[in-house]
């Protein structure tokens, strides 16, 4: 298994390299100039030229690329063009917020979605099935900013249960939970919708398998059939979807971060994009790629937990 993990990480290095190269050049064909952003609209041509030189932006692109690669190999992702602080530090500043939000949303999504999907499958084409499907579709179709604002109006303004600005300053666990509640629910809605849908169809498929018939033939009660025999088998596609959409979740978090005013990777990258902070964008993309690679790896490892047939060779 260690070998498997190492091999996958080996592939990850290749993927990372590809992403880095792609990102480096894509960013540089982006119109827009970081020096203009930094210096503002009254900057003289002279200051702009000076700044370009100081940032190394006046050098040929391939040279910049080599320098960037050299730095990256040494673990140096450079400093943000705009803030002048190390990219790593900027990312690490907000990473915990993103991880916290994504993780709680993920857990919430699974906790809500899995039972709902099972409930729908077991009651296929009956009222609970229709209800679950329609509710999950609401979750799927509402853009995160729509559900976010609705949540704010209901829970922060009408009910006053949660703060509008969940800035993550809470010092106690309870404060933090209060801050986290609405954004996490907002993000979890989409995850829950995906999980519900895939659980339902996977469960339906599993329930038609021979071994389920075997279980019934030996007198297993309905509960045992679903929870003991079917559940674990139906988890593989669920895990796949969770893994696949975790990336989407992180991507989606930018909208949630904006609406609930939370710090996070999403806002950081949109900010970097708006400021054409090249080095920051490069660093962010590495982080995103790493997250996706790790999530994929984790997904594969979870398969092994669920299904004894999976072997890591």
């Amino acid at each position, binding site marked *: 298994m260690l*070998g498997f993990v190492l091999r996958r990480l080996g592939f990850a290095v290749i993927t990372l390299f590809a992403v880095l190269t792609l990102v480096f050049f894509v960013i540089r064909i982006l119109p827009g100039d970081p020096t203009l952003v930094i210096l503002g609209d009254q900057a003289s041509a002279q200051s702009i030229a000076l700044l370009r030189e100081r940032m190394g932006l006046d050098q040929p692109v391939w040279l910049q690329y080599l320098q960037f690669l050299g730095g990256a190999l040494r673990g140096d992702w450079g400093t943000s063009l705009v803030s002048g602080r190390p990219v790593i530090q900027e990312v690490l500043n907000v990473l915990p917020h993103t991880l916290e939000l994504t993780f709680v949303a993920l857990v919430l999504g699974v906790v809500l979605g899995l039972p709902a999907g099972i409930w729908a499958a077991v009651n296929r084409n009956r009222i609970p099935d229709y209800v679950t499907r329609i509710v999950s579709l609401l979750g799927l179709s509402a853009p995160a900013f729509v559900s976010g604002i609705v949540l704010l109006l209901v829970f922060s303004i009408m009910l006053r249960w949660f703060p509008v600005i969940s800035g993550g300053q809470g010092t106690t666990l309870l404060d933090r939970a209060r801050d986290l509640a609405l954004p996490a629910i907002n993000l979890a809605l989409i995850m829950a919708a995906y999980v519900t849908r895939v659980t339902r169809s996977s469960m339906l498929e599993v329930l038609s398998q*021979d*071994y389920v*018939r075997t279980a019934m*033939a*030996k*007198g*297993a009660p309905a509960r045992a059939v679903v929870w003991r025999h079917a559940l674990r*088998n139906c988890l593989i596609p669920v895990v796949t979807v969770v893994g696949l959409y975790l990336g989407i979740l992180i991507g989606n978090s930018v909208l949630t971060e904006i609406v609930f005013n939370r710090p996070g990777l999403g806002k950081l990258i949109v900010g970097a994009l708006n400021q054409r902070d090249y080095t920051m964008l490069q660093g962010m993309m590495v982080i995103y790629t790493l997250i996706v690679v790790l999530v994929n790896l984790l997904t594969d490892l979870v398969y092994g937990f669920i299904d*004894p047939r999976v072997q890591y060779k």
Partner: protein
Amino acid sequence: MSPEPVLLVEDLRVAFGRTEVVKGVSFRLDAGKTLALVGESGSGKSVTALSIMRLLPERARVTGAIRLGETDMLALSGEALRKARGKKAGMIFQEPMTSLNPVLRVGEQVAEALHYHTDLSKSAARAEVLRLFERVRIPDAARRYDEYPHTFSGGMRQRVMIAMALACKPRLLIADEPTTALDVTIQAEILDLLAELQRETGTAVLFITHDMGVVAEIADDVLVMRHGDILEQGPVRKIFSAPAHDYTRDLLAAVPRLGDMAETDRPVRFRPRPAEQIPASPRRDPAPTPDAEPLLSVDGLVTRFKVRGGMLGRHTGNVHAVEGVSFALRRGETLALVGESGCGKSTTGRSILRLVEPEAGAVRFDGQDVLKAEGQALRTIRQRIQMIFQDPYGSLDPRQTVGSAIAEPMHVHKIARGSEMEDRVASLLRRVELDPGSATRFPHEFSGGQRQRICIARALALDPALVIADEAVSALDVSIKAQVTDLLLDLQDDLGLSYLFISHDMAVVERISHRIAVMHLGRIVETGPRSAVIGSPSHPYTQKLLAAVPVADPEKRRARKRDGVAEELRSPIRSVGFKPEDAVYREVGPGHFVMEGA
């Protein structure tokens, strides 16, 4: 008759929507007896079995009466029904590969049955399961208790299923085609095991099968079903000796009997060919020409598949699927390649056509080196060697009309076009005894046998010299199997085709082949004229294989020697550097060779 039947079914009717699939079935089954429910696909035999356990989907309407001892199964619901399942009757299914839950430990799955119906403690249940495992002859039971199903072979899984079904000592065991998916030697072992367990416990067995050979081996009474009706029922001897119904007679006629064809070396049709169908002058000489250069010669063919593992997917071993196989096939001759699953017979067939690339050896077809051919040369060879596959459902593109499927190879090889193509498709369909009007229909509108005919027509479209038939009739019902086999023989007569007939079904092989080659673990262990190989098998494996074939005659029920512990199939996987020994053959009769050693 014994006072109280174990199972009494009266006027059982099952309907899905408006379609009735079981139309008033009644029978009884007494303790210690085996009742065989026989029928082809669609006869309603499996539905009958499932309705006893109440395992049919909710929308099935079941009426009549099913009494299991005192229990009226149709009256049960909820908890009472659950308690009856597994306790009053156990069931084993056709597909051992999918009937066990892949994510639960094997032992626990059996122990579960005990958990639901007894008060045994966990450790007591485990002990009981180990005892059951020993009774169904699972070697090394204590270790295997904690393993997962995927580490078990098909035969072993079926033993686990039997242990599970019998765990709560039910008075009835329902076995729904329990050996159909198994190799013939494994089938023999399982049948023996069932018979032995039945003798020990006195369990009544309801045995669902389509195979009259198996019926002859195990049944006390037989019930023949077709289209949901009972056609005939009675003691096994009576059914076999004096079948009352035409259909039963047809079924019996279609069942090949091993050893019946000992007198001749030539293929034997199931039914004689109607005289009017025999062409006045056969196009080619129907008999193989012994002295001419063989049409196909295979020499030292080796095909291995890489096994990867470890870090960075290193190449850690090889599956020696085909290991030094040599044979020759003359024009108009049929060579049967027989063996059990995994022996390499299919890979041999595919290697010849280079659907998989062989590693070594030589294949010559009609004077050309197949393995060196490229481009147009290879295409020409592929035009003259055709292949028919096992699964008539799978080998036709479901989204292509039959006519287009038959025309496509001619189109690709630019043999015909336009109205000429039309005519050829029509004549090919007639050739395989199908209505030319079928051309505009889709595969799913045809039965399995018809589809196999379509596949044959498609193969014939390119006017081949050699047809590789890979288990071409194995998936068909017995009566259809006979018809298609006869068709293949007719085509050979008329067109002078050569067949490489790959099959595990000894009975069909016995009829269709001129010569037989027996494969085991990637090698040919014995080869020779049909009569010699079947009449005096010389290799131990051939002997074992033939001994396992069920004989469709209850009078000839053989006393098998029971060595008890089952044998797992040996693996053909070897480490990278492994050099197989060269096979040495001994000639035991004219053209009859046997491999020396293991």
